[in-house]
């Protein structure tokens, strides 16, 4: 406990925790959109595919500045998405196969480039490897500023086009019939989701980042039937797991941040799915039991058809 208090007073930790909280918040908000659009796994592809971009950016510029590395990640993430969409569009290969192929090939390319960097004299790839599992302790103050700026931009866009995005996700053809530029809205939203993934890479890493997009949204969905409440809750869940995961990783030696955050948010998902009022499994079980008793009282055999 003392260690915890000490930790939260620590300036470096404050920086790192702030960064993780923002990451959770951003991915929670954008993840709600991704999950409702039934594009949960696209994030998985984009984040895996970001690895070669990070390393390539380093090879080309020699810089380890987060902005430059993340710009590389953004570019390779977008290229991968472009590949996936075109494979599905022009062949009979299904989306899931195209996704699995492209993301594993890009990840392989990332590893090739990483081993290549290792061979370059005077270059230390240690700073790059953190992108595989994420290491929050490597977050610098300027990285956090960068995340804040990205986060603010994303949130402003979400607020501006709130009703458009909501309409588009619920019923894209109707949105089109109302005269909204559905295609451009789609592009903007996809780009924003990719941005959200990219900002989280440093903390959570390329393999696990997709969980940050999916898990908070799925947990939040269980507690509410209102779209805006879901988005706010999702942001909250994301931020909380960001902070707690980071704290755990800072307190315990050799605990990578990404997995720690994922375990936290998964815990929230499991709790929500089991205990959320209305939709939760527990409530359904109780409801079924009551119904059974009621039917038995009525003289029936008490058999309730499984749903």
């Amino acid at each position, binding site marked *: 406990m003392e260690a915890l208090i000490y930790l939260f007073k620590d300036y470096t930790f404050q920086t790192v925790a702030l960064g993780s909280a923002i990451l959770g918040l951003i991915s929670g908000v954008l993840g709600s959109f991704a*999950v409702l659009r*039934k594009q*949960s*796994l696209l*994030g*998985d592809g984009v984040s895996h595919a970001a690895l070669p971009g990070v390393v390539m950016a380093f090879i080309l510029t020699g810089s380890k500045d987060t902005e430059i590395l993340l710009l590389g990640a953004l570019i390779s993430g977008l290229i991968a998405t472009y590949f996936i969409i*075109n*494979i599905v569009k*022009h*062949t*009979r*290969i*299904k989306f*899931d*196969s*195209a*996704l*699995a*192929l*492209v*993301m*594993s*090939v*890009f*990840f*392989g*390319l*990332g*590893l*090739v*480039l*990483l*081993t*290549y960097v290792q*061979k370059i004299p005077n270059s230390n790839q240690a700073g790059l490897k953190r992108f*595989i*599992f994420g290491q929050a302790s490597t977050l610098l103050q300027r990285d956090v500023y960068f995340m804040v700026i990205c986060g603010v931009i994303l949130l402003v866009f979400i607020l501006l086009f709130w009703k458009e995005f909501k309409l588009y996700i619920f019923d894209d053809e109707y949105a089109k019939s109302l005269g909204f530029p559905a295609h451009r809205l789609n592009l903007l939203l996809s780009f924003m989701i990719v941005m959200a993934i990219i900002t989280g890479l440093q903390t959570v890493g390329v*393999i*696990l980042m*997709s*969980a940050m*997009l*999916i*898990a908070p949204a*799925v947990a939040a*969905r269980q507690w509410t039937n209102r779209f805006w409440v879901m988005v706010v809750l999702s942001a909250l869940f994301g931020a909380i797991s960001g902070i707690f995961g980071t704290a755990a990783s800072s307190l*315990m030696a*050799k*605990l*990578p941040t*990404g*997995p*720690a955050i*994922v*375990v936290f948010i*998964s815990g929230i*998902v499991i709790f929500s*799915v089991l205990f959320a009022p209305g*939709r939760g*499994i527990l409530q359904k079980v109780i409801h079924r039991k009551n119904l059974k008793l009621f039917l038995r009282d009525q003289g029936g055999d008490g058999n309730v058809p499984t749903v």
Partner: protein
Amino acid sequence: MSPQFEIQLVAVIVAVACSLPGVFLVLRKMSMMSDSITHTILLGIVLAFFLTHDLSSPLLIVGAALTGLATVWLTETMNRTKLLSEDAAIGIVFPLLFSIAIILITKYAGSVHLDTDSVLLGELAFVPFNRMVLFGYDIGAKAIYSTMALLIINLAFIITFFKELKLVTFDPVLAAVVGISPSLIHYSLMMLVSVTTVGAFEAVGSVLVVAFMIGPPVTAYLLTDNLKHMLVLSGIIGAVNGILGFYLAVLFDVSISGSMAVITGLVFLTVFITAPHRGLISSLRRRSRQKIDFSKKTLLFHLYNHEGSEAEIQEAGVHTLADHLHWDMGLTDKIVKALLKEGNIIIENDVIKMTDKGRILSVAEYEALFSD
């Protein structure tokens, strides 16, 4: 055997062994589920390793097979609650199990000989260091035998259950009717994926296994319609990817498994662009030919509809036609010229008229629409 040859041999065996079950994964739209399994299997490996402290222990296979099944079961159970969609269920189960595995590995990395890099990324270059010794004789690298066993298991499974796999893949309802349990085949296939991942991870790492499972089959899928051909072709493509990947790695002195994945991607890309019938180029060509063909039909049908009507001079006028069809002048000219050349239309006083040939063709096209 030279170390170089041993590495190549293992690369080829692993690639072929992975590509065989991959064919069914691609056809059954289970690619992402297998991706998920190749990640979660890590947890099984880690737990079994803690028990045995031996990476080549058969217990690892048991542990991995169990985690594989657990993954599928967990994902499907979550999905069945209808509280979340299937892809979201995959996206929650695999990161959780994988995270637990990573935490365990890094936590105890110092005390055991198991680090994230070797499990996740594998290292084919180390293959020759681990020897198989029988009665005091060195009979080659251990990995040759372990991956060979894997290949034989996969081959045996697919040959034995070929009929069942085929039926369940293409017609699960019929399969159930004739008494083949689709879920039994489904879980067996998932077990095979798990076992393959365990067999392959030491060489190529668990994250990249999926590239070798999915890559060759989707490439073969663009080249053939026949299931048996697809299996054979996947095996060949896998082997080629393994060898080319090895040389690429040697050339640039980089990760072998990574290079194999890159080659897998490049080979796919080449086939994707150039494949006859299903490649990008032939598909674009076909589409533009279809567009021309269809435009011809449309124009003929248009003429047929307005033949003899008051508005014919307007509707079929050489200068007004483009406006009516809302086509640009270039396309209209092209189509009119082509039809003139074929003798389906003639131009009289600036009005396009159908010839008898054109009229019969137009009616036949419309009739053809209803025949299927």
